[in-house]
């Protein structure tokens, strides 16, 4: 009787101890970054509003994570098509896109707020704004495609193919957009001359944020994927 009531470990695996430890470390790390962004890093000189630069510690990591999500969705799609078409790889790609879309929206919102303060308008089709909108359209199209197919295998196969096609096409935007419109966007952290051009305390918080948010993405991804796999296993049993 007790056996039937207790949760069978094979179908409801709890996280191993090191994952729990990592999750707490991640919480601590993000907290330090949050505090550091408001107290440790100095305000940027040369901005209309000196304190508006603090949004950068969140905006840049979120934009970076949406890029990481895009690449990892492509990698998992490739793994799905080449390594025995496992459901795990398909769901991993789908979860990466869903999380990527959320980070994309957050990066766009934080960027718009900053743009309103510094450039005077929420939106002005800067190349980076254009590329993030296109990334959002692509993510949304991928999710629409998934919702339009009922059969699990067909959904996995077709959406993996679509994600890879998107990955092949995406680099062209990187070449085209900067040429067709002038950018006001501040230079990336590592600029074209390969030099890091930023005050060291700001750089520490920014890099800390990038590492923290990337880890947050993978933690969210792992959690969401395990939930999705359990739900899929539950569906199979019915």
């Amino acid at each position, binding site marked *: 009787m007790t056996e039937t009531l207790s949760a069978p470990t094979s179908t409801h695996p709890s996280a191993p101890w090191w994952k729990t430890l990592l999750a707490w470390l991640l919480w601590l790390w993000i907290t330090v970054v949050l505090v550091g962004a408001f107290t440790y890093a100095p305000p940027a000189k040369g901005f209309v509003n000196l304190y508006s630069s603090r949004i950068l510690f969140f905006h840049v990591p979120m934009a970076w994570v949406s890029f990481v999500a895009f690449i990892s969705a492509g990698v998992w799609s490739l793994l799905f*098509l080449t390594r025995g078409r496992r459901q795990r790889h398909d769901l991993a790609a789908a979860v990466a896109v869903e999380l990527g879309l959320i980070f994309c929206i957050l990066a766009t919102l934080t960027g718009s707020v900053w743009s309103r303060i510094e450039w005077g308008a929420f939106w002005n089709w800067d190349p980076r704004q254009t590329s993030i909108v296109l990334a959002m*359209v692509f993510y949304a199209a991928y999710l629409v*495609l998934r919702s339009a197919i009922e059969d699990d295998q067909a959904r996995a196969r077709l959406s993996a*193919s*679509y994600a890879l096609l998107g990955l092949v096409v995406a680099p*062209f935007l990187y070449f*085209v957009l900067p040429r067709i419109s002038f950018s006001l966007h501040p230079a990336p952290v590592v600029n074209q001359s390969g030099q890091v051009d930023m005050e060291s305390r700001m750089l520490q918080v920014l890099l800390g944020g990038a590492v923290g948010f990337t880890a947050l993405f993978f933690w969210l991804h792992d959690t969401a994927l395990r939930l999705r796999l359990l739900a899929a296993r539950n569906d199979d049993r019915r």
Partner: protein
Amino acid sequence: MSSWLAEASAIFAKDWRAEARNLYALNTLGLFAVTTLVLVSVGLGPMGVTAAGAQVLPFLLWIVLLFATSAGLPRAFVQEEETHTATALRLAARPSAVFWGKLAFSLSLTWALEALVAPLFLAMVQLSVKSPGLFVVGLVAGGFGLAAASTVIAAIIAQTRAGSTLFAVLSFPILIPLLLLVVELTRNAVDGATADVVLRQLLLYDGSVAVAGAMLFPAIWNP
């Protein structure tokens, strides 16, 4: 190799034979394009003679071509699924032959459409092109990119519930870099400027999409 070529050309010939029976795709593409052209021409008048014309009109030309092809090209695969001939096609030819055969059909359709639309457009809005050679190269290379991306996307959407309504949603994110490149090339052709870098990038896009499409197609096509 020869049997592969025979399979691909048989698919190309079959599609044209089926097309010749009712001219559905040709009529759809042609009428859609001409209607939009008339609308643009009536709305804007002889805009080609103004300074803004060289900037705006190449963009409108490619918008017309994009929407006309997205109305007709998805049928290449949607029809196979609707008439339940896709299974026979899977048995009759290997996936790569199906891909290149269908691509050749879409390509010939797109180039035919461009041959009809481009001269009409130039005449109606009175736009003069300073580098006609580059303009034609843009149409040929841009048409190839449109046809290649459309063939892959059409194969995907044919197997979904939504069918051709999904085509625009899926194809536009893939086609936006192509459109930006080809519009820039067409603007340069109208102005008489050189466009070596843009042309190289456009050809690279065409090559990448065709190769990626050919590699992904067996996974898309075979259930």
